[in-house]
């Protein structure tokens, strides 16, 4: 299919037969659209090294806006919880790293190459560990499905990373500073500010529920979080979450269709929340960093 589109659009553009196309009811915008798709598809995938650099840049952008929580227990907790859920995905080859960001905004983020973040504000808002597991599993799904990489690829029309590599080859390889200053940094920044496609979010919701349930958590953790988001629409700290995701009502609608009663047998409220509540209490008491 991919090859066909590329071949067809190449043929259309090369033949320059826009007049015939117009008579056939195909306008120039449509030809251009096909051409754009073809360009995107024909560009080679990022190499693993490039993926790691994009992941690092993405994580650095988020942590540049707000730093990690400087609390060892909190950081170990999120890495153990995340590591346990990541085990249920069969992707042990990914270099999973989890972090809690010291921001009162309620949100969670993923970045290529195994980065997953939740905010202090999210920890403050959730009620139990199954809810946190649902959110972390949703972000893990974004990483596994490469949603951010594909989105960056679409916007990276000039192949910024390869250009950086070429222009800095003489200087002995790509330096982090070259990437941080380059056009890719803007792409990453805009992506976190504008969000992924709706379809990516729905897919991450479905997979997130599955991963969390595989890990032994209540399948309804993530649906409860979505309900909680719905209850907090227009609340302080939820702005970016709402502007970058489909509405919680739409997400619950999609998730309800996919879940039905299929996972009802796994429902549980027997999970020990002692550690979660201790971490949450710390999150409640911790002030935002001074800017």
């Amino acid at each position: 299919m991919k090859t066909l589109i590329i071949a067809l659009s190449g043929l259309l553009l090369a033949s320059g037969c826009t007049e015939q196309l117009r008579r056939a009811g195909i306008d120039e915008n449509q030809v251009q659209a096909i051409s754009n798709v073809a360009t995107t598809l024909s560009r080679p995938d990022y190499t693993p090294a490039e993926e790691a650099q994009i992941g690092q840049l993405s994580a650095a952008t988020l942590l540049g806006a707000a730093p990690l929580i400087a609390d060892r227990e909190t950081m170990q907790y999120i890495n153990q919880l995340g590591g346990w859920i990541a085990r249920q995905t069969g992707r042990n080859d990914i270099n999973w790293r989890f972090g809690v960001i010291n921001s009162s905004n309620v949100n969670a983020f993923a970045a290529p190459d195994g980065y997953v973040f939740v905010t202090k504000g999210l920890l403050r808002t959730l009620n139990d560990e199954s809810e946190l597991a649902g959110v972390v599993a949703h972000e893990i799904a974004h990483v596994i499905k490469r949603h951010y990489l594909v989105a960056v690829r679409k916007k990276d029309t000039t192949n910024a990373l390869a250009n950086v590599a070429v222009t800095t080859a003489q200087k002995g390889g790509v330096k982090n500073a070259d990437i941080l200053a380059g056009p890719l940094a803007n792409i990453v920044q805009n992506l976190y500010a504008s969000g992924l496609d709706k379809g990516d979010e729905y897919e991450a919701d479905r997979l997130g529920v599955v991963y969390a349930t595989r890990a032994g958590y209540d399948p309804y953790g993530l649906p409860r979080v979505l309900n909680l988001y719905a209850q907090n629409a227009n609340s302080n700290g939820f702005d970016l979450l709402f502007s970058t995701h489909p509405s919680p009502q739409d997400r619950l609608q999609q998730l309800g269709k996919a879940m039905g009663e299929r996972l009802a047998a796994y429902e549980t409220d027997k999970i020990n929340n002692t550690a979660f509540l201790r971490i949450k209490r710390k999150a409640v008491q911790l002030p935002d960093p001074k800017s």
Partner: protein
Amino acid sequence: MIRPAFRQLILALGSMLLAGSALATPGTLIRAAELKADAFVDAANLGNLTADTPLTVLEGKGGWSKIRTADGKTGWVRLLNVRIAAASGDGNALATLGNVVRTGTTQGAATTGVKGLSKEDLAKAQPNLREVAKLDGFRARPADINRFATSRKLTAREIAELNP
């Protein structure tokens, strides 16, 4: 150096936040369902509700929501059968509490959202590689992950992926 009175206020607010957001929220039943006396399938049936019944969500538990109907009946329905009304207005009790904790006053609530990870903060952000490097030091070892799971009696289960 926090004054005792202020410290008590913080602790009180903290425990209020910890209690969760038990907010009564308006919603609708999206498909016909039995109103259950408790949050499980075999619980007594208190009556049949029709689709589009307006209701108030009182609390959540597992895959269930405790609701009250307009005529005052209270009971449990499946969480995924309830759709919470798209909210209007400007915030709620939880957000107001957030303001107090953050600024020490209920006046002048920010309209651009909490500082830290807003769209504006992201646009201004200078990439911070030092913070990223810290993550490597917190990576969980397999033995730590095993301990985490066993201490909660979590066991892995085989679950097929869901179709859209």
